[in-house]
C-alpha cells in the first residue's frame, strides 16, 4: 500500500502544478499574437481576397450593363454624330449613375482573367469608387467620351476591387475601349506619368497645359501609386483613335479586338 502511494502521487501533483501556471503575461502574450494574426488576416482580405471577390462583382455588373445595351439595340433611335467621321458625344448623366464600361484587354491579361470590363459612373465620390458594383469614376469637371478634350477617370489601385491595379502594365499602343449605349470609343495608350496627389493638371482638356485649346480626344486614367500607398498618383494617357457605332450585326459592330468578348457577353455566357 505504502509503496503504491509513493509511486503514484507525484505524477498528478506535477500535472496540477503545470495546469495552474497561467500567468497574466502569458494570456496577454497570446492576446497580442491573436490580434496580430487578426490584423494580418484583415489586410490579406482587404488587399487581396476581397479585391478578387469585389472585382468579380464589378465585372458582373459591367457585363449585365453591356447585355442590357445589347438587348436595347434597335429600340432607341441611333444617334448620329455631329459631323461624319466624328464620334457621338456621350450624354451627361447624374452623379453616381453608370453610363459606360471600360474594356482593356491588357488589364485582363495582366490579371490572368479572360476579360476586363468595369463600370464607369459619374463622379469620383465614395459612392462610386468604394462601391462593390461600380468602381471607376468620371471626374465630372472633365469632358465626356467623344468630346474634344479630356475624359478623365479615377479608380482604386488596391482594395475596393482595385480596378486599376495593373495600370502600370499597359504597353504603348494598347487599346483602351469605352463602351456606351451608343457604341465603342477606341483609345490607344500613349504613356504613364507620376504626379503628386495635388497634380490636377492631368485633368486639363490638354493635360498639363492649363488654358490650352484642346484639339484631341484624350482619355486619362488616374489611380494611386505606389501599391498600398497614397503618396503619389499614377496617370495613364490614351488618345482617341476610332468610333464604332452599335449596330444590329451579331457582333453589334464592336471593334474586332473585343468582338468575341462582346458576343460572349451578349449571349449571356461567361
Amino acid at each position, binding site marked *: 500500500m505504502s509503496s503504491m502511494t509513493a509511486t503514484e502521487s507525484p505524477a498528478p501533483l506535477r500535472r496540477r502544478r503545470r495546469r495552474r501556471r497561467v500567468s497574466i503575461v502569458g494570456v496577454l502574450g497570446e*492576446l497580442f499574437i491573436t490580434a496580430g494574426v487578426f490584423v494580418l488576416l*484583415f489586410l490579406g*482580405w482587404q488587399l487581396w481576397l476581397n479585391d478578387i471577390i469585389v472585382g468579380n462583382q464589378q465585372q458582373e455588373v459591367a457585363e449585365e450593363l453591356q447585355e442590357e445595351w445589347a438587348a436595347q439595340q434597335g429600340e432607341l433611335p441611333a444617334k448620329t454624330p455631329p459631323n461624319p467621321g466624328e464620334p457621338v458625344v456621350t450624354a451627361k448623366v447624374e452623379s453616381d449613375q453608370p453610363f459606360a464600361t471600360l474594356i482593356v484587354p491588357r488589364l485582363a491579361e495582366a490579371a490572368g482573367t479572360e476579360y476586363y470590363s468595369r463600370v464607369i459612373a459619374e463622379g469620383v465620390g465614395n459612392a462610386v469608387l468604394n462601391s462593390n458594383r461600380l468602381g471607376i469614376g468620371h471626374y465630372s469637371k472633365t469632358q465626356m467620351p467623344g468630346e474634344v478634350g479630356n475624359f478623365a477617370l*479615377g479608380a482604386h489601385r488596391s482594395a475596393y476591387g482595385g480596378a486599376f491595379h495593373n495600370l502600370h502594365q499597359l504597353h504603348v499602343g494598347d487599346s483602351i475601349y469605352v463602351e456606351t449605349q451608343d457604341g465603342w470609343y477606341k483609345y490607344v495608350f500613349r504613356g504613364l506619368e507620376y504626379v503628386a496627389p495635388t497634380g490636377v493638371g*492631368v485633368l486639363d482638356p490638354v493635360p498639363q497645359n492649363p488654358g490650352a485649346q484642346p484639339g484631341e480626344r484624350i482619355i486619362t486614367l488616374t489611380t494611386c501609386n505606389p501599391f498600398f500607398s*497614397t503618396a503619389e498618383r499614377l496617370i495613364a494617357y490614351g488618345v482617341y483613335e476610332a468610333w464604332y457605332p452599335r449596330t444590329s450585326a451579331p457582333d453589334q459592330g464592336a471593334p474586332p479586338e473585343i468582338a468575341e468578348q462582346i458576343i460572349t457577353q451578349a449571349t449571356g455566357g461567361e
Partner: protein
Amino acid sequence: MYGALWRILPGPVWVRILLLLVLIAAVLTACVLWIFPWINTLTAPPEVTVE
C-alpha cells in the same frame, strides 16, 4: 488561454484537432462574411483622386 481551450475540448487528440479545425474555419468564415466588411466601413478609405 489556448492551453485552456485545448483542455476544455473533449475526446482523444484527433477529435480535439478536428474540433479545433472546425472552430478555426468558423472564426475565419465569420471574419470574412461579417467582421472584415464591418471593419472596412469604419476605416477611412484611401484618397485615390487628384484634387
